[in-house]
């Protein structure tokens, strides 16, 4: 039997775990937060875990031999194990970064450091040269596009991309023309941060591996919203952020297949990540420490582990079912309004928990302002995916995105607030 959305009682209980959800905005309107794709709110257990770390355990982990340092290191490494388990991985395959953007930059810089012959890498998998190609898609968040553009500029490799269809899905018909023996990396998103498009990861990984390319997955919009298992997906490297999944700001994750991480050159260098240092040169610590230069983000990691435990207790299959229900309600409600165009796949099975739309003749900034006036908080603009908007021939869009704590009533609140737009902007609305 498939999982069910949260009941009203369950919803009310879980919302009580998030203190911010009870505040009001813009002159007394209850907060209707539909921007969890940008960042999620944090349950009390996460805030408590982070606070407890600072109050009881605070120490520079992996340094010193005193009791606090021991306990801090233990808390940090236990957090790593919990966070790894959450995506079906082992602890030594998880690297902490400041955010997903840094995790993707880590990989991109590993390639150029490899090309420069340095950085403690092994083998030639992470060497990129003119003639090599990096493949991305037109629907990527800038975080999974700009680092690859810069990598190509530094190494002389060529950037190619998979276009999107007008429906906002990857155009895989011509994948063979851009995914070739020259492709060394294929970096793509699991779920589009704008359209919610759920990409066929298994198929893409298989195609990447068939030509010997590494598959790098941006999982920022999937790990918080649906069950994710790295072994099942078959990807080689995967990046996601903590703050979008009820965790604190300032912590992201890079997961990688252990043998790959072992071969991969380092990115940020300095303390904590070394094995030996002399004035002439250095050797580096084993994975994952070799990728964690400087005093690590221990309190944030502990907070993120608490978030993983919280989500596990909710059940990721139920979180997914709940957001599917909300997506369906939103897409149906918007579809009933002739003056609104829903962007992205028509088939709900191809969608995650984000719905972007356009109102003919009214700029998303204005739509967002009208919603905000009623306490409905959505994202407007290009959502760090400018090329995707160009491909869809819209300058920008309005996006509602969900989390486990979002309710059907909040979807309805958006629709109700949206209905003020036609009159305010003088749109012709058929009766």
């Amino acid at each position: 039997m498939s999982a069910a959305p949260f009941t009203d009682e369950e919803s009310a209980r879980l919302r009580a775990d998030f203190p911010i959800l009870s505040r009001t905005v813009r002159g007394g309107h209850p907060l209707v937060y539909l921007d969890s794709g940008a960042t999620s709110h944090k349950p009390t257990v996460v805030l408590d875990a982070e606070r407890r770390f600072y109050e009881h355990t605070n120490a520079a982990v992996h340094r010193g031999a005193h009791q606090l340092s021991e306990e801090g290191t233990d808390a940090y490494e236990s957090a790593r194990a919990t966070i790894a388990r959450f995506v079906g991985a082992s602890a030594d395959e998880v690297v902490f970064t400041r955010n997903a953007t840094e995790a993707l930059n880590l990989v991109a810089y590993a390639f150029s450091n490899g090309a420069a012959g340095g950085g403690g890498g092994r083998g030639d998998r992470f060497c990129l040269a003119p003639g090599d190609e990096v493949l991305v898609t037109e629907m990527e968040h800038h975080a999974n596009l700009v680092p690859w553009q810069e990598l190509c500029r530094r190494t002389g490799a060529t950037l190619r991309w998979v276009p999107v269809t007008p429906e906002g899905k990857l155009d895989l018909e011509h994948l063979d023309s851009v995914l070739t023996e020259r492709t060394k990396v294929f970096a793509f998103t699991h779920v589009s941060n704008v359209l919610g498009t759920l990409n066929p990861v298994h198929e893409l990984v298989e195609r990447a591996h068939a030509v010997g390319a590494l598959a790098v997955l941006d999982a920022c919009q999937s790990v918080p919203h649906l069950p994710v298992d790295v072994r099942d997906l078959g990807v080689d490297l995967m990046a996601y952020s903590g703050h979008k999944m009820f965790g604190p700001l300032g912590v992201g994750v890079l997961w990688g297949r252990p043998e790959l991480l072992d071969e991969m050159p380092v990115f940020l260098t300095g303390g904590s990540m070394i094995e030996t240092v002399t004035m002439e040169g250095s050797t580096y610590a084993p994975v994952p420490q070799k990728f964690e230069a400087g005093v690590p983000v221990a309190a944030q990691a502990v907070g993120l582990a608490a978030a993983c435990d919280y989500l596990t207790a909710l059940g990721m299959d139920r979180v997914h079912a709940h957001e599917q229900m909300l997506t369906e309600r939103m897409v149906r409600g918007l579809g009933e309004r002739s003056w609104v165009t829903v962007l992205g796949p028509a088939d709900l099975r191809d969608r995650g928990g984000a719905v972007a739309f356009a109102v003919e003749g009214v700029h998303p900034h204005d739509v967002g302002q009208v919603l905000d006036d009623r306490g409905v908080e959505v994202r407007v603009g290009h959502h760090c995916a400018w090329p995707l908007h160009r491909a869809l021939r819209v300058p920008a869009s309005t996006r509602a995105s969900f989390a486990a704590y979002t309710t059907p009533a909040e979807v309805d609140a958006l629709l109700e607030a949206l209905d003020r737009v036609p009159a305010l902007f003088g749109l012709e609305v058929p009766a």
Partner: protein
Amino acid sequence: MDLYQELILDHYKNPVRAGLRDPFEGQSHQVNPTCGDEVTLRVHLVGTGADAVVEDVSYDSMGCSISVASASILAEEVTGGTVSHARETYEAMRAMLTSKGEDPGDEEAIGDGVALAGVAKYPARVKCALLSWAAFTDALYQAEGAQK
């Protein structure tokens, strides 16, 4: 909502002096990277120095009601006036928009610009209202340089 004054929506739907025209001595393209709004604006001057006259302001504005209305109001207010008048108008607009709502704006100085006073209370929208003014001051600087 007091942000969307009738006057703003009028300028949005029927922007004054819209479109790019020749001749011009200065042109500037400005982008708001957070939302992708863009404006290209041209300035045509007659005469030199502070007494030079802004003979034409033409523009192509793609953006929200606030940014389009602001470009329209700009063109209306500065066209036909002197360069020094245009600069005074800009200073008065900027002062109002960055006042966080303290400065209601002086209709004598900025005309229909007072309708944008509500924008100052929404920090995320101030840039929308200032985008075309950034293009104007840049284009004006180029136009003055071209005369030397």
